[in-house]
């Protein structure tokens, strides 16, 4: 475990406005000011249910984007400009995507500062708007904000505060995206910093920060040097709370995985895959949004055979290619016009590979297993 601190923005306005004491905003501003990076890549809030990537060097724009956006399920790795030093706020799936893309020479990791955000999952915007109107009778336009806190879904609206346990919400088919439910990586340990709520004493406006790399040190130092941040060392109790929270969330995720993926084991695998993938209309969206696909527009897989095949070659090739690379970010499933549970399917294959080879994509820079020889040629 890296060095752990409780830290916050020195500027009282940023500390008040930003989520968890504005540490992330302050750190991004410091990185710009110190010239560590040319620009920062963050999520611009359009409203509670819509956010878009923003690449900027304007401190005012950075300030206006403070606090995480739960209903903007983006993977920012796809928006990193080539050949530029940038700091980017990353969920674990963004960070893992960046690492996988850097293995494929899509991104130079040297240029990237990853400010990690602990993540309990993101929400699909339209489904979440339906949740607030179906369950609380609210006009989504009247929603001022929503968050997940201590297992509860909290909606702040003009007419008051509304709440429901997450378990109930998700049992009713609302709540987080499926891939987030079964994602068991909550702390972006592969980023340079990991920032989150867990471990922060109640009532304190601060972020629990773990420094994970030398670049993380640089970022933290920049905050101190520019007097943008203030901090204290995290105590044992706080560290323990964070570990416990992380463990509980991972267990929760594994439970979701068992439940959702058991549907495949209950039926005949081949029939399941033929049936689900049979709805594919070959629009190519899953490939376009896939952060680990390096071919993108040059890919030939989309035009490969499908007539008369029970599963198209496109689908099989993607499944096989992602077997050692899928990071489970959920982008493919989000955009699939045929509602194929693609991330679940890719993860089924990836997790088998993980179990067999002990390799997890997106954690460190070792080559994907498919690019490596089998030691000794053992069969």
């Amino acid at each position: 475990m890296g060095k752990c601190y409780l830290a916050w923005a020195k500027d009282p306005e940023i500390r008040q406005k930003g989520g968890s004491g504005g540490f992330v905003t302050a750190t991004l501003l410091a990185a710009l000011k110190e010239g560590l990076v040319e620009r920062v890549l963050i999520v611009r809030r359009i409203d509670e249910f819509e956010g878009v990537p923003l690449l900027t060097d304007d401190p005012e724009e950075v300030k206006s984007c403070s606090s995480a956006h739960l209903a903007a399920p983006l993977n920012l790795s796809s928006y990193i400009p080539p050949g530029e030093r940038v700091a980017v706020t990353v969920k674990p799936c963004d960070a893992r995507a960046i690492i996988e893309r850097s293995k494929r020479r899509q991104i130079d990791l040297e240029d990237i500062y990853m400010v990690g955000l602990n993540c309990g999952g993101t929400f699909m915007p339209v489904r979440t708007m339906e949740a607030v109107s179906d369950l609380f009778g609210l006009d989504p336009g009247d929603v001022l904000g929503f968050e997940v806190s201590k297992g509860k879904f909290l909606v702040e609206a003009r007419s008051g505060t509304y709440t429901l346990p997450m378990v109930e919400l998700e049992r009713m088919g609302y709540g987080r995206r499926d891939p987030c439910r079964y994602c068991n990586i909550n702390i972006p340990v592969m980023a340079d910093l990991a920032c989150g709520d867990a471990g922060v004493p109640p009532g304190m406006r601060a972020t629990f920060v773990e420094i994970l790399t030398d670049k993380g040190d640089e970022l933290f130092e920049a905050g101190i040097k520019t007097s943008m941040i203030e901090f204290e060392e995290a105590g044992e109790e706080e560290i323990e709370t964070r570990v416990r929270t992380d463990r509980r969330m991972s267990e929760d995720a594994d439970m979701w995985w068992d439940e959702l993926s058991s549907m495949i084991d209950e039926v005949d695998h081949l029939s399941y895959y033929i049936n689900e993938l049979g709805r594919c209309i070959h629009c190519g969206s899953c490939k376009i949004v896939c952060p680990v696909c390096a071919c993108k527009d040059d890919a030939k897989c989309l035009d490969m055979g499908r007539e008369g095949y029970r599963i198209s070659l496109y689908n099989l090739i993607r499944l096989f290619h992602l077997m050692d690379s899928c990071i489970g970010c959920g982008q493919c499933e989000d955009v699939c016009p045929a509602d194929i549970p693609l991330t679940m399917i890719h993860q089924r294959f990836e997790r088998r590979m993980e179990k067999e080879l002990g390799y997890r994509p997106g954690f460190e820079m070792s080559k994907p297993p498919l690019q490596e020889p089998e030691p000794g040629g053992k069969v």
Partner: protein
Amino acid sequence: MAIERWEPKILAFCCNWCSYAGADVAGVERRQMPPSFRIIRVMCSGSVDPCWVLEAFLEGADGVLITGCHPGECHYLNTNYHTARRYRLLRIFIEELGLEPDRLRLEWISATEGIKFAEVIRDMTEKIRALGPSRLGPER
């Protein structure tokens, strides 16, 4: 009326430098082999793209055999070690997909091992006969 009996179809990718010659030796020595297999000669087992294997199944192969040079004897440094890795992942892959993993087989067979080649073909044919037709092939 004659009932058409199903016979397994096996596609074999054979390395030019070893097992393709091995298959030839098996023939020259008149080793008994069922007529269940078709050979595609490749310059190295490592040049077999996993997608070809998948395509073979989609096209109606009931089994796919990849044969290459023994470890340490690759004509091109260590490419057969890559074959071994791909094979390992392909086995997991087709198992999750719902095909019996034994439909895919990798064997190291040298240019002189005609006997081994014939044995592998006989054994694989029997195993696949027991498994029945692949369900990934085109609708019959």
